[in-house]
């Protein structure tokens, strides 16, 4: 595993934007009432936000960024790094980050590019942004994360449809004089790449006559090859094994213990899975917030969305030691220990 630290870069603020439209798993009539009850109890997911057709991840991030830049009172001329991490980009090409540079009216000297990651995207993004700022001397940066997942889901697939929600989030970072470090652990295991996959539409399997044919894989799971496929059991087994191990190593490397942490914010995947990880690490329940119930699994936006919706007050004043951990599609997993101080966090935005 890659273990490393980045210093002299701090998080200044963060914001999140979700679609107004809500969908409740209580209304998910593809499964029986008792199945619905067990699903909500096990996954912890009750409602999800669903984007209207035509709304993109970058639209959500644009709104979140506009509000955040204004609340931070940042001069746009000083923002010269924009990284957009998503698996639902505006176009096959060009990179969405470049379009956002123009839309946000950032200077042409901006470094802008996309990265394709999901659940682990936020922690990977922090490491890339912080490392790049440190080596280039770029003073202010925006890291944007999120996905519109709903457009890839089959309603007739009970293993995916009730789990995912749409969201975008933005984090503002700047160079600082502080000695606080962000300490990272980043990992990959491509042998599990089929555990979460949209099989067709890339170059490996281009769209063809069979792509949109609905196939019943097993009872309750009917989907096509442009839908998101999820092998929940394998992802669950991977997460409860690898995530606690890598976090234990990160804490050890950082010479910290769980008692040094104020909050542990995990990717919002599944309540039972996240609670299993929390118990293995022996972290108190009060330190572990969830946004799952109201927003579901929001891919790379889930960690900042949880910070905005569950920890806004606590993070807005004073210093806090946070452990953030993302894990899933890839398979890819990454954690970071970061100290925040007086963050600027606008209330969640709905469009």
């Amino acid at each position, binding site marked *: 595993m890659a273990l490393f630290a980045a210093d002299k870069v701090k998080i200044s603020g963060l914001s999140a934007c979700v679609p107004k439209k809500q969908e409740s798993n209580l209304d998910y009539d593809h499964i029986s009432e*008792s199945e619905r009850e*067990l699903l909500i109890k096990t*996954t912890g997911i009750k409602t999800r936000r669903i984007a209207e057709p035509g709304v993109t991840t970058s639209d959500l991030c644009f709104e979140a960024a506009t509000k955040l830049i204004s609340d931070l009172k940042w001069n746009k001329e000083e923002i010269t790094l924009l990284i957009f991490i998503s698996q639902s980009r505006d176009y096959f090409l060009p990179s969405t980050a470049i379009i956002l540079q123009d839309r946000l009216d950032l200077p042409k000297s901006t470094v802008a590019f996309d990265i394709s990651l999901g659940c682990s995207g936020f922690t990977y993004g922090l490491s890339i942004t912080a490392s790049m700022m440190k080596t280039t001397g770029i003073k202010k940066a925006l890291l944007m994360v999120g996905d519109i997942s709903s457009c890839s889901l089959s309603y007739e697939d009970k*293993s995916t449809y009730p789990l995912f929600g749409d969201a975008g989030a933005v984090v503002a970072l700047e160079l600082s004089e502080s000695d606080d470090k962000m300490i990272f652990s980043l990992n990959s295991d491509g042998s599990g790449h089929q555990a979460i996959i949209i099989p067709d539409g890339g170059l490996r399997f281009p769209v063809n006559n069979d792509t949109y044919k609905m196939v019943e894989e097993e009872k309750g799971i009917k989907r096509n090859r442009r839908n998101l496929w999820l092998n*929940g*059991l394998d992802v*669950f*087994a991977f997460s409860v094994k690898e995530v606690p191990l890598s976090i234990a190593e990160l804490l050890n490397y950082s010479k910290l213990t769980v008692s040094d942490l104020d909050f542990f914010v995990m990717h919002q995947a599944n309540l*039972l899975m996240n*609670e299993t990880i929390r118990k293995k690490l022996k972290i108190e329940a009060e330190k572990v917030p969830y946004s799952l119930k109201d927003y579901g699994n929001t891919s790379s936006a889930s960690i900042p969305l949880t910070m905005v919706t569950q920890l806004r007050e606590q993070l807005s004043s004073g210093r806090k030691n946070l452990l953030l951990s993302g894990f899933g599609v890839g398979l890819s997993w990454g954690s970071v220990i970061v100290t925040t101080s007086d963050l600027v966090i606008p209330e969640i935005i709905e469009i």
Partner: protein
Amino acid sequence: MTLTLESFIAKLEEEIDTIPKGSLKPDTNYRDIKDWSSMHALIIIALADTDYNAVLTGNDLRSCNTVSELFNVIKSKIA
């Protein structure tokens, strides 16, 4: 925690509240549990992990059929 087949069955009946107490037998095929779904499988993986420190894989769940087969796999994996 010591693992016996009896305690494992009691634990399953406790964690999965749709199973009537006393109805689960060693040779019960767990897929025959009323309204069996992947949610039940997740509950079993979490239970094995939290209570017995045994990491079950998706394949373990797919290849076993009866409660006692599952018990033997967990027993062989206790860390």
